[in-house]
């Protein structure tokens, strides 16, 4: 079966574009309100965890999309 763009990449792009906007708004709000206070050491670690989490999921999905087509 021939897999087209709508089957392979459109969901991925949509997920990380729309989801990414929600994520960025969230990050902006918590940093702006100092709920995530970057002056505190343990909050800096949380910043890394939050960003790494996003990349981690984008990588898992990306990886499986690539290997599925092998």
């Amino acid at each position: 079966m021939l897999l087209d763009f709508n089957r392979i990449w459109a969901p991925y792009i949509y997920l990380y574009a729309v989801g990414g906007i929600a994520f960025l708004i969230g990050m902006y709000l918590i940093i702006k309100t100092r709920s995530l206070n970057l002056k505190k050491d343990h909050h800096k670690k949380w910043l890394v965890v939050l960003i790494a989490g996003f990349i981690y999921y984008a990588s898992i999905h990306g990886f499986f999309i690539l290997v599925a087509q092998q």
Partner: protein
Amino acid sequence: MLLFMDFLYSWHNNRNMEISVGTGIDRVVILIYFLLVMGFGAYFGKYSKTTSDYFFGGRRFSWWLITISIVATGIGSHSFVKYSTKAYQYGFSSTMTYLNDWFFMPLFMFGWLPIIYYTKVRSIPEYFEKRFNKTARYLATSMTLLYMIGYIAIQLLTLATALYRIYNIPLMLTVIIIAVATTIYMHYGGQTSVIFTDLFQGLILIFAGGLLFVLGLNFIGGGEFIIGMKSFWNFLTPDQKLPLAHFNHPPNFNFVGIFWQDGVAGSIGFLFLNQGLIMRFMAAKSVNEGRKAAAFNVLLILPISAIVVSNAGWIGRAIANGMPGILPPNLQPNDVFVAVTNIVASPGVFGFIIAALCAALMSTADTLVNASSAIVVNDIYGPLSKGKQSEKKQLEIARYSSIIIKVIAIALVPFFNSFESIYEAHGWFHSTFTPPLVVAVFLGIFWKRFTTPAVIATFTIGAFLMILGQFNHELVAPFSHGIELRPGKGYSYIGALYNIFVCASVGIIVSLLTKPPKEEDIKGLTVFDVDNLKAKFKGSEINEAKGKKVIVKWNIDNQIENNCIRFSKHDMRKMNANPGDLVYLCDNRSWLGGLKSIHAVYGEPHEIDGVVMITDYQQQSGLFNNSNKLFAEKEM
């Protein structure tokens, strides 16, 4: 009632056509498991002395305990059947809903979690009263209860669907037996029982799901695991290996619809509105422990859970593709979990895996029932009795309301059974009940301008527009992203986007047309004040100077007042603490996960190093015994 009777009748007629599965050993294993969990839950009932213990487990648990207990809450019995079905039909894209929760984690971990923890709200509707008014609370109470009772009904239906084949007991009778079993341990134990039975069941779930995958791969490989892995991969088509579904096709399983229904409405609903989950986080010993539990859960446990709940379907698909003749050609996708388990597992092991399905149900249902009874006590009984009733009376109400909730859930089972599949019933449920609450709580937390008339309009006008959309599909069409309209059924999942849009529009428009709330009325209730919430929680300036933990023995001093405990001057210096700061005192055995612990306030210091003076009440609350040392750490 007629629907209920009709359901019983049709079930009875169909029953004899079903194939029963499992052996006598399997039935015994399942029965033993039920008894074990009930005993386990009842044992931990001794840790519930107050309503705070009953609902929040005394706010004392470590992150790892919360994390593992959340596994069992997140994986319902519906998960095994629902995701195996989709895994069998569509392959790896069945995992989509487990892997799309990270987008809202910043707002949850640093917005909502500190708000609910530090404002000490006992329920989500209570937040609505604080942020808006009583009417908003009542509306939120009814919608939240509807949401949770419906959820419990789906759980009961799913497990009963699997169990009645094994025991040949009528479906509705199976539902009732399961409801009674979970009620027994819940009735006495509350949240502490729920957490500990969920810890046990979470481990069982992961183990059983993993075991099923290994057995399945072994089966495919003819007893050779490595060959099985290779064959499994080769038997699946590229389409079935993709982790995300087709963008907008077919109408009953497409990426964009499920993204809005589950990734947005479902994720926000689960993280922000699921009272059961919220109560679990509130049982953490601190906000930071709650954050750790949340992060660990989404980053590690959810991907594992996705495999646990889907793999029976993947194995079934691989067998159907590459080993024709093993599974019946007319196998219904809903039956794939039980069918595959029956094929790959030996007698006894099959019973164990089905027992894990029971674990999934019992742990999800107990959390939801405990949460629903918390809402009944806090948001219905509390305001009616004007807070004059004793703790004992409140606990009594909580216990009896949990029984009533289950009875209502049982009555709803036939309604959910009328859907094409459990996946669709669950999808409809999420996209219909969560949007008004999701919009209300989200705008309430993250938009100061959101007003009380606006939240009421969101609940009422928003709900009206949603109902309009259910019957007039042309209203939903502009949001459809090209998804085909199913005649007579409408748009299923993408309806969530329309519902969110209309509720948010109503909320925003009415807010802009009405007078903004006064700053002092919403202080500490939005993300903009989170930075000051700690001080509000403590009641004085916070002390964030770094200190060390100290190991102490305890002595009784009943002269101490105001929930204070006393340390030596030297120990206080080591902890960098001052009288009036908050302290956490815990049994030094870390594997207990904070079960034996208390929160208190530093009193005036004494002279004996290595000793903490506590009252009889504190000793009993923390269940401290003489043979074990305690550790103490300053909280703030």
